[in-house]
């Protein structure tokens, strides 16, 4: 039970895009994790970060964008690097009772979507998936998702370099129009989450959206990741429509390391992921 970091060695890495890499390692505690759950990943001497599981099983994986101190250390060393992991934390996506789903992934948010797609397909859920990125080069898991989903994969890029030009929300709107799903699952930048939420509300479709806040403990005690009266690390990171409907902070404000509330733009700039 104690949540001490367990040191694991990165067994292999997979370059996904010019900016993203996947790191595989064994971590028994996470072998039955739910898609959407995350680990706290400690690089000794550097930092510790919450990172979604991008693959679940005997071997698990995380997929990280190289962009800052911590992730560049990870990129830089890669295979053989020893990191301390604790978790899995958070609630994860719930597929209970779902027969028909649309999954929408944006940027880094595609990481937790990978095992979710896997799960939906295994459970025989009718699954359509939208994956978006700014440009083709940084589209995650394209080949793998194409193989698995065929016609059920819809790609969007901001610049039209792959799939349809435009936002994931445009694609989602069309798909809902064609055939209403039981639920929309999504992970991506919070502005995108907000747009998806608004769309789902309008279309009267339930959604489960994965959000991000700065975290410290990861297990619901320090209060750092608070959104309204919810702890994103423990009550989330996946929230359902009802929770989001009642939220005053979703899509609007978030807290910096100091706990100071700032509007989402400022938070996103600081976060810049």
């Amino acid at each position, binding site marked *: 039970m104690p949540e001490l970091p367990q040191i694991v060695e990165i067994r292999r890495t997979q370059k996904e895009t010019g900016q993203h890499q996947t790191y595989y390692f064994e971590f028994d505690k996470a072998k039955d994790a739910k898609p959407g759950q995350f680990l706290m990943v400690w690089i000794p001497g550097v930092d510790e970060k919450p990172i979604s599981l991008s693959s679940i099983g005997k071997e698990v994986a995380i997929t990280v964008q190289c962009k800052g101190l911590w992730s560049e250390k990870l990129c830089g060393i890669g295979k053989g690097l020893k990191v301390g992991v604790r978790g899995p934390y958070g609630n994860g996506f719930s597929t209970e009772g779902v027969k028909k789903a649309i999954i929408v992934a944006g940027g880094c948010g595609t990481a937790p979507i990978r095992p979710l797609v896997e799960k939906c397909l295994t459970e025989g859920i009718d699954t359509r998936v939208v994956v978006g990125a700014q440009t083709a080069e940084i589209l995650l898991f394209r080949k793998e998702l194409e193989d698995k989903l065929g016609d059920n994969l819809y790609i969007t890029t901001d610049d039209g370099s792959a799939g349809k030009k435009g936002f994931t929300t445009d694609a989602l709107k069309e798909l809902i129009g064609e055939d209403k799903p039981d639920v929309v699952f999504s992970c991506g930048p919070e502005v995108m989450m907000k747009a998806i939420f608004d769309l789902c509300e309008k279309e009267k479709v339930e959604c489960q959206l994965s959000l991000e806040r700065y975290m*410290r403990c990861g297990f619901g005690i320090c*209060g750092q990741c*608070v959104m309204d009266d919810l702890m994103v690390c423990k009550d989330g990171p996946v929230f359902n429509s009802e929770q989001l409907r009642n939220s005053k902070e979703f899509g609007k404000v978030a807290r910096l*390391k100091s706990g100071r509330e700032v509007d989402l733009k400022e938070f996103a700039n600081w976060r810049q992921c």
Partner: protein
Amino acid sequence: MLETEFCGLKLKNPTVLASGILGTNAALLKRVVREGAGAVTMKSIGPREKLGHPNPTVIEWEHGLINAVGLPSPGYQNIESEFAELKNCSAPIIASIYGASVEEFETVAEAVAEYKPAIIEINISCPNTKKEGQIFGMSPEMATDVVSAVVAKTGKIPVMPKLTPQAPKIADIAVACEKAGANAICAVNTLGPGMLIDIEARKPILANKFGGVSGPAIKPIAVRCVYQIYRAVSIPILGMGGINSGKDAVEMMMAGASAVGIGTATHYRGIEAFKLIADEIKQWMKEHEVKSVKDLVGAAHD
């Protein structure tokens, strides 16, 4: 049966959320009240915006938690909205403050007093920061300086210094605080600091290396501190450190606490810890035919 009084405030039960646990915003504090807390303490507020320490900052080990969150705070300048939202809270709000000098304590106290919290807790006991905290709780003289300065700025709002179990003679510190005008004592903050080393990484786990120890491991130390303080002062004590069950709470009250702080237990037992612990206290009182929690306070003293 569980209703009690602390420092002139009515509490529906003696459980109080400890500072730095979940207390980052008004909404979550109110949720803790809904979950059964008799009162709630806000995360300690400092003299300016402060980021706290880098991660890892909070780690669970076998016998408790160790943390070096490092007193992150939006600063007293940025908390008006939280206080505004807390106005209609059904339980008393304790505001916790810290500083790195007597002047800083004064400044924060004066600003926070404007928001009329039920009590102002003075955190002179944080073991994981260099300049703030613990140092002021280690000698009666420094504690006196801080407490008198704060008391002079807070008007009628009761003032409650929070002490460190690391103090060489904690009862002397408590006496000094009482003389300086404190209306209650909060005991104790986290123990230590302590350190965990990951032997695979060959490094201390906390980025700050040193962190305060809380939870079950520290209960005997906390109980001793409260017992000693109870014999030395006549102001009420908010006892905390390792309380994880109703029985632990009863033990702490018997040592001399008028109310009990709950921190780490919210990890072990969930946010519902307050209701669970309050129910367990009630159950124990029924089985032992104790009519009021007040009858438990100090019961272990001859």
